């Protein structure tokens, strides 16, 4: 089963970076991809992320998200074609030859362009966050976020939300099987679909609520919220962090210049 957003234990470039460096990295990537509208520039950013992933031996994990991205990109492009017709007409979604309904929904260059830009932005954001989460141990993440002054309760909430994704996936699968064995028939039509949710969702949520009770007690009994902590195996900013941040600064400056001269 594909593990969504789970830390992958490895010893490679991104894993060795300090969480701060990686947080700076995703912030820079997010701002750049939101501000840039140039297709070539966005494509280069995607390529850069893929190179970074390959260098950090995380390419396989990253490409597991490709299916989701493809589905989303089709939806994005369809929406922008329908809602943002602009520029030259390339053709029609429903061919003109079709009687009565033919010739509707023009396929415009503007619509396709915006769709592609959205897809690329989406891809960059997903890849960047994915790289960050799968290469950072939750413990380091907790420490970094604590030092940044975030309240511990919110940090734990964030960590736990990520940590229990695979557990819920597995549990959902088991519940689905148990209901199938009782002749559960995923309904047809809209009402059927809604009805078929209850036999799966109710046990899943009830069990999760029960579990959250134990989870909460565990957090307190282990003293995660007591505020005092011995610093063990603390990560320090190393030479490679400074080098990487240097690259980020140079890239950001270059980006600002490109923006000013209207190249992107």
């Amino acid at each position, binding site marked *: 089963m594909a593990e969504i957003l789970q830390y992958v234990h490895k010893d490679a470039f991104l894993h060795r970076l300090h969480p701060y460096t990686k947080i700076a990295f995703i912030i820079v990537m997010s701002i750049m991809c939101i501000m840039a509208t140039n297709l070539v520039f966005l494509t280069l950013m995607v390529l850069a992320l893929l190179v970074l992933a390959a260098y950090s031996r995380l390419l396989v994990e990253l490409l597991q998200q490709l299916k989701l991205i493809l589905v989303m990109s089709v939806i994005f492009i369809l929406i922008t074609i329908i809602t943002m017709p602009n520029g030259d007409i390339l053709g029609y979604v429903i061919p003109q030859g079709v009687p009565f309904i033919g010739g509707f929904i023009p396929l415009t260059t503007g619509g396709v362009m915006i769709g592609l830009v959205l897809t690329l932005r989406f891809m960059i954001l997903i890849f960047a966050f994915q790289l960050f989460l799968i290469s950072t*141990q*939750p413990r380091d993440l907790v420490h970094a976020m604590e030092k940044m002054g975030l309240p511990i309760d919110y940090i734990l909430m964030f960590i736990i939300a990520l940590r229990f994704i695979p557990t819920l996936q597995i549990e959902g699968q088991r519940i689905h099987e148990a209901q199938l064995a009782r002749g559960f028939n995923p309904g047809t039509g809209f009402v059927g679909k809604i009805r078929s949710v*209850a036999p799966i969702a109710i046990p899943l949520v009830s069990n999760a609520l029960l579990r959250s009770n134990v989870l909460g*007690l565990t957090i*307190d009994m*282990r003293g995660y919220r007591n505020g005092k*902590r011995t610093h063990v195996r603390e990560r320090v900013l190393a030479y490679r962090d400074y080098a990487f941040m240097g690259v980020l600064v140079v890239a950001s400056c270059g980006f600002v210049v490109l923006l000013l001269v209207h190249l992107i």
Partner: protein
Amino acid sequence: MIELTNVGYTYPHTVQPALHRITLSLEKGRCVMVTGPSGAGKTSLCLAASGILHHEYGGKKEGLVAIDGKDVNEYCSLSDLAQNVGVVFDDAEAQMIFTTVEEEILSALEHRGLSAAVIEERLSGIMKTTYIEELKDRSPHNLSGGQKQRVALAATLALGNDILILDEPTSELDEHATRRIAGILKDLKDQGKTILLIEHKFGQFREMVDALVVMEHGMITAQGIPDDVLKDDRLRAMVLPDFSKVKKNLHTAVTSEPVITVQNLTHNYGKIEALSGISLTIRKGEFVAIVGENGSGKTTLVKHFNRLLSPTTGDVIVHGRNTRDCSIVSLACYVGLVFQNPDHMFFADTVREEIAYGVKNLGIDDSDAVIDAALRDAGLEESADLYPRWLSRGERQRLGIACVVAMQPSVIVLDEPTTGLDGNEALLVINILKKLQEKGHTVIIITHNREIAEHCADRIIMMEGGKILSDTGGA
């Protein structure tokens, strides 16, 4: 170390007290085991003895709980209590917050105000005592049940407290994994730890238990040296169930028609071969027990009987039809599967509606009569209008069986039907299954309990590493 005097407790919004006049004393370096039917208040006792009840729960509290000679109300918070008591809850998965085993234990150690050097030393010591060194970089959802329990125990040990309270740490484990936990606890006791253990499997922990406490209906009905307590026949049946009186089916089923035929079945999960070259025939009216350790392929095998899994190679024939050509729903009329954890299926508002769900799905005529019969068979007539999740574990297990029985499949498959039950409850389940067999159903159970397999089943299939190691029925 822990003193409970006349402790009573009633959960908010309920009338019936969960604990009633409990007086119990746990002395330093001793191990007390608490046992009793599900729903007797064992977990509530666990919460009361650790002080959690007084700090985290509302409801009506009576009596005194003292930990290390100090009234629990004098401790200012759970973190404060955690300086003295370590608790391992029954749900091991919920006690894992981080994504690798080592991280989990290290994080627990970090909050104890120790120096970095001591932390590193303790970390490796604890990983060694609990045999989890080789799991150090694994993530929780990739661990087996036994491994998860050991990690949860290790993270609690990291706190370094002298008092340990464990709530059914072996309920989902096979014999081998249980022995391992028992061994670890024995070592801890020898190191001087004080242990309060909630358990059903007295047999496995016999050596280390100094006192046995039996709880029923929120009260302690017996406590003392195990041998004294077990002199009482009624308690003995509860603690050490005797399955030898379950009568076996005398007329052998060898001549009757086959209901399930498995031919050279192989199943792969990705690259891992979970089943290889399984062939067997199960005949009408047989009572079959499938035994073997966790991960030997038992559950994978039975999931092929109703096509939750399809063979990678080979065939499964149910009632003369190849499962490849059948839908799961159509097979549900022939093969009913009761999963290990009944909580995975309950979603209705009442017990009756829960049973009706499967019956309606299959469009069975005269559904009311069928549901009544299933309730009667499972001994749940009086609970028909209750909310399923309010039932005790034993009752929920029987409800799980009733849900499947009501669908009238000729073959009933049960995955670990006696998990988390005391002796009497387990016997009740077995007797229900025996009755079903008498009515002509074929019963297949997966079980860790060797006694149940030996005394109740007509045929034992032993599995190991995805293969059938032995089969007393012969194919």
